């Protein structure tokens, strides 16, 4: 990472700390904002957050590794998460999953070679009545079938 990038990141985090406060409890909102801005939280960002909140870097990493929606290494620009919990599974998740995999040419847990889409499983999205459901970036799609899922994917490609 370049020094300039580092300094910019530090400034950004300082602004966030002003916004959310220097408490331990501000950690998650700060991390969420960094995640939103950069799509991942670099090891340098983690250490800066730790320094400014007066906690240890490993504690920041511990929190990031706990939450599925925070990540410490870069992912694709768009993240597609398909619900893998039992109701969606019964509602036909399997067919949707294989259709998406075929369309993108990657397996779950992988990123397309052009870095556009990362495909993941998510646990219950709370859409059990209208499954199968998936969440693309921040938007939830429900009542999926293979064709609908493929067309949603193609829109973001």
């Amino acid at each position, binding site marked *: 990472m370049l020094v300039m990038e580092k300094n910019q990141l530090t400034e950004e985090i300082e602004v966030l700390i002003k916004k959310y406060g220097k408490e331990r409890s501000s950690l998650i909102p700060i991390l969420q904002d960094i995640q939103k801005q950069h799509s991942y939280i670099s*090891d340098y960002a983690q250490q800066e957050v730790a320094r400014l909140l007066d906690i*240890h870097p*490993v504690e920041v990493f511990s929190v990031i590794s706990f939450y599925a929606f925070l990540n410490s290494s870069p992912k694709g620009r768009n993240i597609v998460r398909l619900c893998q919990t039992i109701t969606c599974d019964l509602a036909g998740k399997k067919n949707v999953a294989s259709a998406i995999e075929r369309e993108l040419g990657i397996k779950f847990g992988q990123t397309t070679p052009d870095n556009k889409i990362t495909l993941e499983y998510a646990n219950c999205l709370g859409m059990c009545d209208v499954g199968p459901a998936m969440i693309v970036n921040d938007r939830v799609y429900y009542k999926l079938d293979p064709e609908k899922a493929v067309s949603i994917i193609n829109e973001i490609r």
Partner: protein
Amino acid sequence: METKEASRAPVSQKAHIIENKDFEGKIGGTVSIEINEKKVQVPLGTTILDACRKNNIHIPTLCHHEDLCVAGVCRICVVEVEGMRTLQASCAFPITSPIKIKTSTPMVRKARRHIIDLLLSEHYGECYSCVRNNNCELQKLAKEYGVDSYTFGHVQKSKYPVDNSSFSVIRDIDKCILCKRCVRTCIDLQEVGVLEAVHRGHDTHINTFMEKDLADVVCINCGQCINRCPTGALHANDPSDEIWDAIDNPKKHVVIQTAPSPRAAIGEEFGLGAGHSMTYQLNSALRRIGFNAVFDTNFTADLTIIEEGTELILRLYKAVVEKNPQIKLPQFTSCSPGWVKYLEHFYPEYIDNLSSAKSPQQMFGSLLKTFYAQKRGINPEDIVSVAVMPCSAKKFECNRPEMTDSGYKDVDYGLTTRELAKMIKEAGINLPEMPKEHFDDPFGDASGAGLIFGATGGVMEAAIRTIVEFVLGKKTEDVFEKANVLPVRGFEGIKYVELPLGTEMGPVPEIIKHLVPNWDWLKGVTLKVAVAHGTANAKKIMEDIKAGGKFSECHFIEFMACPGGCIGGGGQPIPTSPEIRKKRAEAIYAEDESLELRKSHENPNVVRIYEEYLTDGPCGHISHKLLHTHYKPRGRYIA
């Protein structure tokens, strides 16, 4: 950065003890409870665990440790509390009302048995190939609760690779039971913050920042996590096989130096209680194992006092008389390699405050391969130098690239107390029965000042004994009763002492006459010193110095990385507790008082080495080459 006074542990994790001594006798200050139908009175706020222990009722624990905050994660200590729907974790239950507790009901026993079975179902590895065999808390519990089969299965495949990147600490996470004692040790007790639980659910394990190797993160190698690990998940990097090879090789001249703290604690590995000093029995045991010569690290501890004391006098002289602005005060001790690495990581801007004197172990190492080799006519290449230390960081220290001033690796192997005990047992020796023997020449037996280096405040006390005599020209006994500098003793986290030097100065002793002309410049000066043990306390002092507080006006500060000093080091016998450390310290102080020779500068062998070998005196050219070192600013950022 503002300093936080209290420990960094979240409020919810602190023990719920109401500390109000007037409270106890008052109405409502105590609660009467029933434990197993026996009525007892306990102070309000006592945990069920403490109440039971006070009344000799055994409750098994895993995640609980006396040095650490309450966690309540392992649930092995559950008990039945009448009126509660579920079992309660006794370590995390403060008593505030008259409750009825049952500690051994079918429900309790079944729950505990299930917890052990569940822990074993995830615990990979066999007991007989484990370093903690026979000293493992999980194994002990399995025996206590009669585990005869794996109710919930047993892992057959290793899940995590062993991390043996570090010179000091090896992590075998397959054996981890997630009690988080190491996490609380590293974060709360030491404030280093290397280990934390990462990932979630079934994938949770203890790991470092970004899952890096231990050698690549800010670990200071203090080994406190090893001392508190209930299983074999954390253990020291054991060089005993290489040492056996060297002993069995007739070409090699294998020498060993023993530090005072292992000698005060090794008896614990042989079934003695804490606080039995084994100094002289150890000498004969080591000779019988096959070591060619046995030396006392205290000799170089005495040398450290002379070198570090002279350095302090020179620093003060340059700062006070020559008004040199480049001189950094306070001077920090550099005997504790854990503390040195802590400073290099977290306060690299204060590296110049560290005394450039090496630790006693490394001083001995460079003397053995130069002075001793010459004197005995041995090729230094054939000398294998081993150091018995209470410390895991010493293993890292002897592997520092700058520690080769003799032209060879100064100290070849750092051995911990536990590993030495294992070697002694391997040789079929029962240590307590060994005859008493003295140390080998040319270093001989050392002074009591070197001996007390093992306890927190010891370096300071040894330095004060010498400085008082050097500067005031009086006997230390005339200033402090029996030469015991009591204000620097004891286990408070931070000790601060002021010593007014007065106006009566003595003559400058011969040994440093060429460095300072007289003591007039010290007239009326008050010497301010401080002592800290455990890096959490060191951090408090460093933050105070940064903020320009009272510690920034100190002249000399002793830091030890481990709680209690070396006697509580990361290589000492397991378990550890405040009580055990206190007994070990008492053993050291008792041994010191039994000696005739109790001041470093009176050690005849130290005087002789300055006459024979280090001829240009303390902090001279030769001693700078062999006995002093430099440090590396590492910084806290992990690349």
